[in-house]
């Protein structure tokens, strides 16, 4: 297990560098930030000074080299906008987003599993239709629209919740509800789909005929086998959350890293942008490794010790070897 972990970490190093390099180059392609930061009357001399002070006059290879040398010293540069160290700003903003994303994802998984399983018990029955319709709609609404409507209805008209900000427990409700909609919608459908397939397998029938209760069947047998595709989708949704919380953070004034990224893009604050992207990329790579470990936990056949077989299974496909082995019992 540790060899596997070490191998994955090493494997992730190269893409990480690629991401940071990519951001570095792309950000600088967006043009000269001096007009934004210097006063209106700045002379050409002042612009030249600004460029020299921030290293923008050097060729891009040199800038990249300087930056990486700085990173090795843990110096990620300074914000053009505020003058603070970029790493500080990124590290300060990141936990807020992490909290939001983690709570949202956990709640979304629980809700989606419950809804999806319930729906799969009787395909095309009433429960199935309701859940399908609800989950499709939930995955189809624009998030900023829901956020603003939510504020309008619950905070202004009804007065039950605070409009925005970060104080008190109630303030979590609207942002999480908004962020949760799409994951629940997508995940519920995926869980339902793979549960339907799994529940049609012979070994389920066998378990039923041996007298196992429905709940036992669903939770102990079906869910475990249906989990793999759901895990893939959940992982992707989680990544999307970290990136896509920008909108929710902007509206609710949540001091997270999504808002920091979009602000630094719009303000051409390169150092902060690079630090924020680096941090996010690190988190995403870590998440991917955790997901892979999750697969291993769920399905012993996929454990790293058993060789290099396909690590991630497609949705709802159980290999015929298992089916054969079970029907022979």
């Amino acid at each position, binding site marked *: 297990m540790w060899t596997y972990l070490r191998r994955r970490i090493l494997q992730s190093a190269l893409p990480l560098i690629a*991401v940071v390099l990519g951001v570095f180059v792309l950000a600088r392609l*967006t043009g000269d930030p001096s007009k934004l930061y210097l006063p209106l009357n700045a002379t050409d001399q002042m612009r030249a000074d600004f460029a020299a002070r921030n290293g923008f006059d050097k060729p891009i290879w040199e800038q990249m080299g300087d930056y990486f040398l700085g990173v090795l010293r843990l110096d990620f540069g300074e914000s053009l906008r505020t003058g603070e160290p970029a790493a500080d700003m990124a590290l300060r903003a990141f936990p807020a987003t992490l909290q939001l994303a983690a709570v949202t994802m956990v709640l979304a998984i629980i809700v989606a599993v419950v809804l999806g399983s319930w729906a799969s018990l009787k395909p095309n029955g009433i429960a199935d*239709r309701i859940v399908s319709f609800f989950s499709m709609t939930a995955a189809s609404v624009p998030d900023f629209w829901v956020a603003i409507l939510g504020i309008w209805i619950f905070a202004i008209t009804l007065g039950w919740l605070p409009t925005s900000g970060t104080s008190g427990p109630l303030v979590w409700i609207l942002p999480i509800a908004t962020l949760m909609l799409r994951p629940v919608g*997508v995940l519920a459908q995926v869980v339902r789909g793979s549960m339907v397939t799994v529940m049609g397998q012979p070994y389920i029938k066998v378990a039923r005929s041996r007298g196992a209760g429905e709940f036992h069947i669903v939770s102990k047998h079906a869910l475990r086998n249906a989990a793999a595709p759901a895990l893939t989708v959940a992982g992707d949704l989680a990544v999307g959350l970290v990136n896509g919380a920008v*909108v929710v953070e902007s509206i609710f004034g949540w001091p997270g890293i999504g808002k920091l990224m979009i602000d630094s893009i719009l303000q051409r604050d390169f150092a902060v942008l690079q630090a924020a992207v680096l941090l996010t990329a690190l988190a995403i790579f870590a998440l991917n490794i955790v997901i892979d470990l999750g697969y291993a936990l769920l399905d012993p056949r996929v454990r790293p010790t058993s060789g290099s077989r396909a690590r991630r299974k*497609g949705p709802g496909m159980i290999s015929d070897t298992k*089916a054969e082995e079970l029907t022979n019992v």
Partner: protein
Amino acid sequence: MSDDNASTVTVLTHQARRNRTSGRAGLWQLLLKDKVATVAAVVLAFIILTAIVGPFLFGELAQRQDLGARNKPPFSFDLGWEYILGSDSLGRSLLARIIAAAGTTLGVAACAVVVAAIVGSIWGMWAGFHRGWRESVSMRIADVIMSFPSLLLAVVILYVFNPSAANIVLVLAITRIPLYLRTARADAAELRSRMFVDAATNFGAKQGAIVFRHIVPNVLPTLVTLATLEFCYVMLAESSLSFLGIGIQPPDVSWGLMVAQGRQYLAEAWWQSVLPGLAIVITTVSANILAAWLRLATDPGQRWRLQTKKRRRLIGSIAPRR
């Protein structure tokens, strides 16, 4: 053999393929059997038709401003039939704008999904089939793209090059490729390791033939479902870009842009934001319903679910033999 429900793998023998082709006319009948899917298909067809024809018929009306008729609520017939859905902040007919925007929205979303699906799937199947270093490198590239903030890519592409619908399609496509890549690779890798591929190789089938005859038909249903879900996501992503001010730009119009612009008027003119949003929801829900039906219908191993009568579709019943 083709509807053995113990295994979801489909081995297409010559006999089965002939059966399949002759049964294609039966697809329509299959559709009509499922009322919900029929409704969804009709709605979707209507929307697509609107998207194709609408901009020509209503394009000009959608641009006609009338500052005296700003923010009129729906059913303001005193100003003309075109104000049945009200007017926007510049007095333009909301009905005309929604129709004209259908073309842009569906066009951008469909293009982005098609490009991402084709590129991602082919790449994924290639990587999954060959395994080895090809697979590793592809997965790492997928990781890189996925941890790349899609917004940064969008902003840069839109500022370095000219902001246009084509560039938005490019951005949205690139950021979604990894999903198809991973799914296709996983399926292809797993299928490849099954016995029937070894069998086919032993019989002398070429690699290309194996891929097309065996791998693709089995991966296709998954990808189709994925693509439809993605269609929905891309439409929403486009509206998020508009919210941030870097999506489709005025004077072009799209549903996402209308929702984003209308959000400033929620208190007094809610229809400007709600109605285009409703259009998005209706389109994506219909597409999803149809895709779920399609998945069952195009997978010979699952089709029985649609062919049996309702009460027989419960789990645990034995599939009827052909």
